[in-house]
């Protein structure tokens, strides 16, 4: 039985992942900025799956607290799943530095800050799994989503570098690039059903990737091909498109 730490545990995706991992018999540590919001999920998980479930306060953008946060975890986790992220209107954010910074910090800087600490610990223990939920939006910048996309691009690159570095320490790193997912974050968007995963599918993909030591997973397989095509469009054409 392992202990799984979920960072950013209040999102729909995190709820599904936490339940999936608990259903497999793992103990769960839930961490989020507003820990009060985690209480219902805590009882839900411990009652449903009969595992231990603890809650912790954690603010991804309050970097200075990350060390003490990690120190306070008991026991130390065997698997860390970094789910937090934040998306908002790109055009508005591009005219508002605070908002841009929030997107960058919530999707990239915060993750680097906390995962650096986790990585040190795992490397020292020569074991562990780190999962980062990044995004296909990071594969190529588009006018509709490029601030979020660039932060996720940074996160994806970070994860692949981390995977490379920790390989010799027997620590595995999974990058998850879900396409569209039905969540609170996307509730306002009209998403094409065929391309859209639900949070349970993401959770199942995460669980499988951990078990099978997969490196990069797209939740719905055709996203891999879609992104390959999108990435192969020459910039000269791409820049004229309304994407």
């Amino acid at each position, binding site marked *: 039985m392992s202990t799984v730490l979920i960072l950013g545990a209040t999102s729909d995706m995190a*709820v599904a992942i936490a339940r999936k991992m608990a259903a497999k018999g793992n103990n769960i540590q839930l961490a989020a900025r507003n820990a009060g*919001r985690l209480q*219902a999920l805590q*009882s*839900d998980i411990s*009652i*449903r799956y009969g595992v231990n479930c603890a809650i912790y306060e954690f603010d991804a953008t309050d970097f200075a607290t990350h060390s003490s946060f990690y120190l306070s975890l008991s026991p130390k986790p065997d698997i860390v799943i970094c789910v937090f992220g934040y998306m908002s209107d790109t055009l508005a954010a591009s005219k508002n530095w605070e908002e841009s910074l929030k997107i960058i910090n919530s999707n990239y800087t915060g993750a680097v800050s906390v995962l650096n600490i986790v990585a040190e610990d795992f490397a020292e223990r020569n074991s562990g799994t780190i999962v980062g939920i990044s995004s296909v939006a990071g594969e190529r910048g588009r006018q509709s989503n490029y601030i979020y996309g660039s932060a996720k691009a940074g996160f994806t690159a970070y994860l692949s570098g981390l995977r490379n570095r920790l390989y010799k320490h027997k620590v595995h790193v999974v990058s998850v690039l879900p396409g569209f997912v039905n969540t609170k974050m996307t509730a*306002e968007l009209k998403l094409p059903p065929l391309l859209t995963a639900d949070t349970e599918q993401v959770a199942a993909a995460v669980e499988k990737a951990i078990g099978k030591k997969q490196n990069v997973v797209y939740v719905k397989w055709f996203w891999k091909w879609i992104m390959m095509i999108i990435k192969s469009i020459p910039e000269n054409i791409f820049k004229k498109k309304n994407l």
Partner: protein
Amino acid sequence: MAQKNIANWGNYPVVESNERSFSFDEQLEQLVEESIHFIPRGNGRCYGDASLGEETISTLKYDKVLSFDTVNGILECQSGLTLDKILEIIVPKGWFLPVTPGTKFITVGGAVGSDVHGKNHHVDGSFSNHIIEMQLILADSSTIVCSPEKNADLFEATCGGMGLTGLITKVKFRLKKIETSYIKQKQIKAESLDDIIRLFEEYKHSTYSVAWIDCLKKGQHFGRSILILGEHAKLEDLPEKLKSDPLKLPAKKSIPFPINLPSWVLNSLTVKLFNFLYYGKNFKKEINNVVSYEPFFYPLDAILNWNRGYGKKGFVQYQFVLPLEAKQGLVEILQRISNKGLGSFLAVLKVFGRQDSIISFPKEGYTLALDFPVRKGLFEFLDELDQVVLQYGGRLYMSKDARMKPEVLRAGYPKLSEFRKIVNKYNPTNKIRSVQSDRLELTT
């Protein structure tokens, strides 16, 4: 704003709605404050327009188990949790739902909003009978607790009140102790309507009972049916091979129904065929066996989205209750349906025991439920049936309704004005309203 077209189980009517959801109490509070009006929505398993409106608040993400007392069998949960999930939690610990409808894909909020009944109403009453306490958020976004003792008026009007008093957030209710997850089932063939009524009478102490009626059969075999009875199996009732794991959960298997079928598929011929097959399976007069709870309670859940079998235009379910002595009314209604040949995939007959709530559907008598694909002339025909139901002192189930006239509701529910008064107290500006409540003139 996320406008989308939504419909409930009957796929009729389809309504454009701004549907929003929440995971946390503060989010819900904010949603209620921001809404011009709204109706709570669970899993959309009511058949008609009860949980439809221009603005709906979905509880589906508000689905956490809050406490489970495994010694005394008391569960507390958020209202969006569905019964299928609850069964997975409680059955392995030796507990069962006190009351369950014919599908497990409904939310606890929906179970209260419709005050659902099962095959054990004559013994255990409806769902509200087992509630210890619940919490609601009212139209003014304040939070309030109610129970049969505390704010009793609100409690009574919320059970079966179709969401109009407020949005139920948390429910604490009692479970039923079981020794095994299996049901001792008895199926008995009945040759006629008289026969089946006599059998219901004979087996009135059976915990669970329901009959499937071939309502298209004419002549001598009019009303031929199968009575299905059940008791929770005790350990000693199980065959040896099941005894090692008596509280085992049934394996999950379900087949999705592929597409919307054109509605001619359900013409009276296929209905006849279906009924014949179902009936033919029971070649003996009586069959006794032990089955898992799943096929016993939820035979239809095995085919996900079977409602698509009624085609794009959708269907309505017609469910009414008649007093015990009004057997003649049952005959008359079944005869009219049979003569009309409008077809019903299902005809389900159950008994209700005593219940005297202000707005809940059950009251002592026989309840019959039938499906009708929507087509020209149907609603006129159902209006005629309504008159027969009323004439015999019966009423219709709002949770299945998409078309009854407000007069029919008023005539069937003698305590309706009391209900309206309570709704008025807690929802004074009709902020909480549905397509149904407007149609039935409850919120206009």
